[in-house]
């Protein structure tokens, strides 16, 4: 792990406190995985923003229901000055699928959050418009195509 990565992990540890769970480093893909509490996501994005002076790019959000009781969200980021791939991971239990919307911090997440909402039923609090994006108008309510039974 290079100096830049260590710095970011330290910033997360200091800034999030309890909200920061752990980290992993994938040497082959040169990617840094950071596991955080779902409540700490907004703060995490602010820390990233600070670390690279606003020069970062939100690649995508993956929502995955892997069969357990939780839905895993992965935020893929690319930090331009550090040339660093960062994955921020958070989990939300299926009984309470609520997260803060990150649109105010990172406007690029606007469509991704809508997609995760309609495919998995995750509610992003504070999102300006959580309407249907891909599914047909006659698709039944509360049926999410990518949920596992």
């Amino acid at each position, binding site marked *: 792990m290079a100096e830049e990565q260590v710095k970011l992990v330290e910033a997360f540890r200091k800034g999030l406190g309890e909200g920061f769970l752990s980290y992993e480093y994938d040497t082959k893909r040169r990617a840094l995985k950071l596991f955080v509490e779902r409540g700490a996501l907004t703060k995490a994005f602010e820390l990233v923003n600070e670390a690279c002076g606003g020069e970062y790019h939100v690649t995508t959000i993956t929502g995955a229901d*892997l069969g357990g009781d939780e839905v895993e969200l992965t935020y893929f980021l*690319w930090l331009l000055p550090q040339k660093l*791939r960062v994955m921020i991971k958070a989990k939300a239990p299926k009984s309470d699928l609520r997260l803060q919307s990150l649109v105010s911090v990172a406007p690029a997440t606007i469509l991704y959050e809508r997609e995760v909402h309609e495919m998995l039923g995750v509610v992003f609090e504070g999102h300006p418009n959580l309407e249907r994006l891909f599914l047909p108008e006659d698709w039944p309510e509360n049926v999410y195509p990518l949920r596992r039974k």
Partner: protein
Amino acid sequence: MSTTKVIVGPVHPALHEPERFVFKVDGEVVVDVEPRLGYVHRGIEKALTERSFTQGLYLIERICGICNVAHTLTAVQAIENAFNIEPPKRAKYLRTIVHELNRIHSHLLLLGVACELIGFDTLFMLIWRDREAVMDIIEMVTGNRVMSAYNIIGGVRRNVSDHEVLEMKKVLEALVEKVKQYKEVFAEDPTIRARFADVGRLSRAKALALGAVGPTARGSGVKVDVRAEEPYAAFDEVPLNVVVYEEEDSWARLMVRIDETLESARVIEECLDKMPTGPVRVRVPEVAPQSSEGFSVVEAPRGELIHHVYTEKGSDKPLRYRVRTPTYANIPSVCEMLKGGYVADIPAALVSIDPCFSCTDRVALVDVRTSERVSVDLLTLARRYGR
């Protein structure tokens, strides 16, 4: 302020791409844009979890026909990442070559279509005539003009012979000459300057904030290119010059594509020279050897493309497969670009992101709901206002 709603996105004759945008216009100026996606949501991500890795690869290839090589390349790299296997070196070079050939064909296609949208049919026909040469080599190497079915997990399907290498070099050399002429036309021609320069502005700050990718970002001065920054396949040995234009308009985005075409041709030639001999594929297990996750990021012709896969030990199907296509990432930016512009400039701005709507899962057709809404297609729009 009274606004009228204009729906764009019926049967789309120029791009052969279906989409729908609702524009709120005040006179001639666009005030707000609202994209409606998902007319052709086929449910690929779900279907992928129900098919084996090999079968899924052919489905992934058909997410988008134009950048199919980019899709399969990303998929095999993501799966190889999850399986923890390494393809042979020659296979990596061959992947790069086909990937770049695919980029050339895609960029020439877009440049032609852009010319047609502004009514410059001569250049459209000329560019498409020369594009056929690339299609011929793709057919020669992979076995089909468009759907290459070339990348597989653990390598590529077919080796190239020395004769084919020579043929490729010859065709590319001729092509580069022609593309240089087109570059001159694009840079100087008054028609093109009048229709594309200063249209669809997207500032650097906005491009970053809205997550623009590929030529859209590079036309706004953001220096992001996955090939240079997170090198994959053979790009760690074949250095790439990233093309960046600072003009922040549609013209800059088209110029980025022309320069990239030339750059791709150079990369292919370098790859052909440097390519080592050896096997082109390794045997891979049919079922996932471990429960893990893999991802891969690739610079597709339209921008950064990411696939993310979760595997489960002992299963031949992925647990979750996620695809994020470049056009999807560019939609917030294109909405921003169109705001404040004229109605007549909509096609010129829209075409400059090279929208690939089948990637993004949709189709739109004529939909006249109420009498106050007007339904027009892009080409008529371009013809009516543009000439």
